[in-house]
């Protein structure tokens, strides 16, 4: 019988899906209130070299002594070496994360989940529609598409927030407005600053500025419930097929690898068959949205 101090069997070291890999926080940027962008880099060179993810996938982030939580990856694997995690300060793990400073360590394992079906989307137009904090899980898709621009047809970003100050990645997105290969439509509900030089109005109004071809377009949507309500309505009116409207779900997760049972919705695991679901799944799986 093994005592507690003896080395773990080789199998636990070799193939352990629960093994967090330590990573260093290299940069922390405040985005909006309670939202920070953590740039992290694995300590092991092997992990830096081999970790690749699809847009829409997530990692399990550990803070020793506090616990583990699923966090979606906001950067794109087309820009490897580091991972960027846009984190909302909301639970035990994220509150602890916000107390950490650059050079401190966190544990990371993954990537998990299906991610956006980029191979399926390739060759089609892509509409990314985000409201408020919904930009966080869609940013990886945006940069993946921009960095693989030749693989996609028309690329359209519609992003709306309450005010310019509430815009996630605001500066970065504003800098994309002049790109010729992206239709970047940004809007705010109101502009208390008086210096906002993009559009003012609610997100669904942006549909007036763009001609979409539903037959050859995928739409990735994320935002608060009101965004889903109005954006989905517009997309369906335009004739989008329900399985070409994609959305990212959030659920409680303890393992990320289809075992612990927590993220189950209806008969699917958010961590395995999700977190990216299409609208057809969403209306067919109970408790989905």
């Amino acid at each position: 019988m093994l005592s507690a101090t003896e080395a773990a069997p080789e199998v636990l070291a070799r193939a352990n899906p629960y093994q967090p890999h330590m990573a260093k926080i290299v940069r922390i940027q405040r985005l909006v209130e309670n939202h920070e962008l953590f740039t992290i880099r694995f300590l092991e060179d092997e992990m830096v070299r081999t970790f690749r993810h699809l847009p829409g996938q997530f990692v399990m982030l550990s803070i020793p002594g506090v616990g583990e939580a699923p966090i979606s990856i906001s950067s794109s694997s087309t820009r490897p070496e580091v991972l960027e995690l846009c984190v909302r300060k909301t639970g035990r793990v994220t509150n602890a994360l916000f107390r950490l400073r650059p050079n401190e360590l966190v544990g990371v394992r993954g990537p998990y989940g299906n991610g956006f079906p980029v191979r399926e989307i390739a060759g089609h137009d892509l509409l990314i529609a985000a409201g408020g904090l919904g930009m966080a899980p869609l940013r990886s898709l945006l940069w993946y598409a921009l960095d693989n621009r030749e693989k996609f047809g028309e690329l359209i970003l519609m992003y709306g927030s309450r005010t310019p100050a509430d815009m996630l990645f605001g500066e970065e997105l504003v800098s994309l407005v002049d790109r010729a290969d992206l239709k970047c439509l940004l809007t705010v509900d109101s502009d208390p600053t008086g210096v906002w030089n993009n559009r003012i109005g609610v997100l669904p109004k942006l549909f007036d500025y763009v001609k979409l071809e539903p037959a050859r377009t995928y739409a990735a949507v994320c935002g608060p419930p009101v965004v889903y309500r109005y954006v989905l309505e517009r997309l369906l009116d335009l004739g989008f097929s329900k399985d070409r409207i994609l959305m990212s779900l959030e659920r409680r997760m303890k393992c990320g690898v289809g075992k612990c049972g927590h993220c189950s919705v209806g008969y699917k695991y958010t961590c395995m068959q999700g977190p990216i679901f299409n609208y057809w799944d969403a209306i067919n799986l109970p408790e989905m949205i």
Partner: protein
Amino acid sequence: MKILKLPKDKLDYFASVVQSFGEVHAPVEQDGKFAFKRLARWSEARLDYDRTILPPKKYFLPPRETLFQFKPGAGYIPFAGDMEKKIVLFGVHACDVYALNILDMVFGGKYPDPYYLERRKNIAIIGVECVPDAQCFCRSMRADFVDHGFDLFFHDIGGYYLTMVGTALGDDMVLATRPLFEDVGAGDIDEYKRRSGEKRKKFQIEVEIRDLPEIFEMEYASAIWNELGEKCLSCGSCSAVCPTCYCFDVADDVQLGTRAGGRTRTWDSCLFATHALVAGGENFRKSRSSRVKFRFYHKQRGFVAEYGRPSCVGCGRCISACPVKIDVIKVLDTLREMQHVVSH
């Protein structure tokens, strides 16, 4: 499959030899009920038991288990605990072996769980046939027989145990006691078939599972879920005693006064209020009725979609464990039989 027979009066001797393959655990009587336990002596073993309080899953997915130890600067170090201990589980019923085969699918797959799978490798299983009682519906759940998942399986054919040899390890056990085992004759096979037919007639419960997933879809909004939600105490007893419930929680515990500690996983239940609670306070299954419904739905509908069969083996444990007498048979019967009277 290699099949032999063991004279019943040689069982004690066989058991004494099997000890050399690992610590022998078997059902032992405990205040009128039965529990799998380490045997102090073979005579404690009660192979005539009905069902154990907890299923054998406690050996493979312990109620509480440390996965990692952590300390500052060292990250998370895998923790093996006693997962390499050799154990022989003696006297496992077919439904419970079947349940382990179901857990194998969950803990295998794309991301194999080495903690579970190592234990599965190190714990030998000797199955024994049983006699169905008033709560057994393993036959309806197609789990009254198993063709794999055990090392040896004993079928009672009167003076002998007809012995199915399932693995190389099982064969080693037989070879270690080879003179005890005899070859099977045509009469033994006939006797097995006769008894198998007799056993079939003893089932008092029959549940038709074929279109249950469809009925679950149709009755998703049924009032029955609210009624069950009113009764259910969210105690999670049904999950604890269920041989196929595998939900677990994971938490980091810090040793007092240090920054070192362990990451442990513990049994969880979808009946607990926090099961679908996410950071920020959103709870996707806030009401008790939605949680009761989820448990039934996942077992009889969700698992079928994912793994091709219900994650219920008909062992009947949840029926006796429920403090408010929610009875899976009655729930399934009601769902199938209730008629909707349409008023005009």
